[in-house]
């Protein structure tokens, strides 16, 4: 079969246009998907070391491909984890920590407060900081799943000012003080 010159040239042009465009597909919906994951609070949390006075030093594993997105989600997830989940200890001598609240439905009861608290650029940012300028440590970026179900699990180390966070939530009347029961 003889391919005409016009047909051949159009294939060439299309190849050179389509190849770079294929990669733009990766960019779509990254932020949208990460927000969705954050709304359903899909993350893992682990203690890294004993933090300095009044802080927890933790690693938060979020699910996103993009670093910037992962960092922002990690901060929200870290504060959320400290308030509602706590974390397990580790073999490196890190002790387990209980969450700031034991009330399982507090998040639903104070939905208005927490929606505002965890909004983009919300108050949660006061209580969390990145320990390594947001750089992902070796081995803390992992690719999971195959083909369409592929996603990235990114571990970001953060420091959460748990004493300040507790005080703020107590002042706002969201959680009870440590000595309120006595």
């Amino acid at each position, binding site marked *: 079969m003889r391919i005409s010159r016009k047909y051949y040239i159009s294939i060439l042009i299309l190849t050179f246009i389509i190849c770079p465009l294929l990669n733009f597909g990766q960019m779509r919906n990254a932020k949208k998907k990460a927000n969705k994951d954050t709304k359903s609070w899909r993350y893992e949390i682990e203690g890294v070391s004993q933090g*300095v006075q009044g802080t927890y030093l933790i690693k938060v594993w979020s699910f996103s491909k993009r670093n910037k997105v992962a960092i922002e989600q990690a901060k929200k997830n870290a504060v959320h984890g400290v308030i509602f989940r706590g974390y397990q200890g580790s073999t490196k001598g890190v002790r387990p920590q209980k969450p700031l609240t034991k009330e399982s439905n507090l998040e639903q009861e104070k939905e208005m407060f927490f929606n505002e608290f965890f909004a983009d650029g919300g108050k949660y940012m006061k209580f969390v900081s990145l320990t*390594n300028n947001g750089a992902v440590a*070796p081995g803390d970026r992992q690719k999971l799943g195959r083909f369409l179900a592929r996603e990235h*699990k990114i571990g970001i180390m953060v420091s959460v000012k748990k004493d300040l966070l507790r005080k703020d939530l107590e002042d706002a009347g969201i959680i009870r003080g440590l000595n309120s029961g006595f």
Partner: protein
Amino acid sequence: MKLLKTPKIYSILFILFYCNFLIGQKEIQTTYIRPSIVNLYGQSEPNNKYNIALKNLKKYSSPLKRFDKLTVDYPKIILKNLIELPLKPVLPKMPIKPDSNATKKDISIYNEQVRSFLKDKSKYKSDIRKFNTAVSERNESQNRQIDKFIKQSSRDIIGTWFSRDSLGNMSSDLWNERVNHAKTDDHVNLAKNSAINRTTLLGEDLIKKTYVIIHLVDKIYTYKEFYDNKDRENEISGKYQKKKNKPILRLKEGYLSEYKSYLYKLDFNDSLLIDFYDRYWLDEYIKTGREEKIADWEKATFPINYLSLHNFKQDNSQLSKNHYLKMMKTNPAMLVMYNKKIKSIPPVENLIPRIGAVNLTSKVLNINIKNIEDFKLKVPVFSAYPILAKIGTKEGIKKNKRWAIYEIKIDKNGHQKKHKSGYARITEIGQNDTIASGNSATSIFRQHGGKRTYSGMLLEPKHGGFFEFGIGNTYSSTNKSLQGTTFDIGFRLFSSTKIGYDYTFTEFKIDNFVGLKLEKKLEYTDSTNFTHKFSDTLVKKSSDVKGTATSYNFNFGKEFLIGDRGNLILEPRIGLGWSKYKFKYDNLVSDSVENIIPDDQIRNLYTLKSRTIVFSIEVGYHLTPKIILSLRPSLVSRLKYESNSQNNAKVSILDGNDDSSWGFDKLNGSITFPMFFGVKFKL
């Protein structure tokens, strides 16, 4: 052996090989912790030359920049009771069988020689067996003594790590010093945010990466001994040959030395560390139970594993008087210079102080740098783009070297697997020789194709990518002689400059070809000096003509990468080469020409050749980090055609229906714009 001939075994081997890539590891090593290298020394004989060689080995053996040297004060080992090796037996060559004209005497001499040869062969078999046994016994004895020596030294290596003094007191001074040198920004930042500083834990990892190299001066002998042995071997080998063996020309004088380097790894782990603190740790504050701990320490050994053995040779020689005498014969014009050289030859003893002046440690480490995981540099991407990584002068990295970018995948079993996502080359090296502060200098990498890079991906050296191979098709509508299947090879010289070679060929077939004509009458002078003159045109008129058109050029180019990922490539090139038409002349050449002029001369007449200058710009796109889709428009300036015929008889083409598309009407020079399209592979 039969099994190897069946295709099944290859299928099984292929499946096993493929599975190897599919199976992940539980956890991939993602951080580089500087290994510490301990050098220990030994010699096979206690004589002066061996002492000098060992002293030089000590002086020159230093590790590469990515390693730390741990100096352990431990005496050398002098190997004892080593077997003196006999001279290596040599089997004489078979006697030469006499030809059919040989006399009876010759045949009887030959038969006698064969009998004698068979006796020699039988003796050789027994001698070589004894020799091999002696060699293996000597090696075994060496290995045994070295193994014992290394086990004994393990205590002193651990003692050095804990700065143990003569009273048995230990401290963590060296440990802390090494931790300070080896710690990274990750360690520092973690420490800043932690209530407990755990950077000293890095010290445990550093001890676990202690490697020991024992350099043994095995043999030292003179060039005279070397040549004497060669003469002996040649004499025995030529025992039954008619030609007498001449002594080998002794062009060099000096010393040859052989070394063995044994590589071991200290097998230290957490439980051993706990045991160490429990049983052996002493400091000035411990007042009770000191004697027991000191006594225990005297008997202590720590596990150490053998990894590999490496043999090295050093040639410590100078050109001898014989060399210059030989040169005088071959080049008498330089007689005065060679005489001067002979007079200025220093005494051979002057070479003795240089025996062993070689860095064997770096050689051993270089050999193992790809085999031992601990020796492989690895660093996470700190940020992108530009790709920055906290690695630099401290690790001895080099500009322009290629690194692979990996991302870690988790398979369904939870195992980690490295997946290469691209390549990058170092464009700027960070000066990180100082102690990590949390904000250390970074090196800058330029990505050379692949997927998008993110912070946390892994960078590992993957040197290569210097050779490229491309295959495709070149199209040229105005001159089809420059089109066809194209092969393209290229070598990277530095970071972006390349030299290359392009070769394009196609076969042509022209219907209703009118013919070639001579520009002047063809003459041919044969071997008897008779000159034949032909009045006819060079070719008969033929209905069609076939041949091959080829073009090739050597080119020089510079690569420009576009975009963060460097996936789009622009590469302007300039090249010089040739373009050729080779006609299949069998049906074309006239009988008179064919009968007189030899084939190769006719072939030259029917080959039209022209110089070309090629300007091109390659536009490439990385489909994968190793495969590039390439489009290359060119401008080819073709100069006037020439023929290689003996009397410079030039040919040109008569008018034909299809001449112009094959460029026959442009034989006096032309400009064409061919276009290459294909794929290139980076190897």
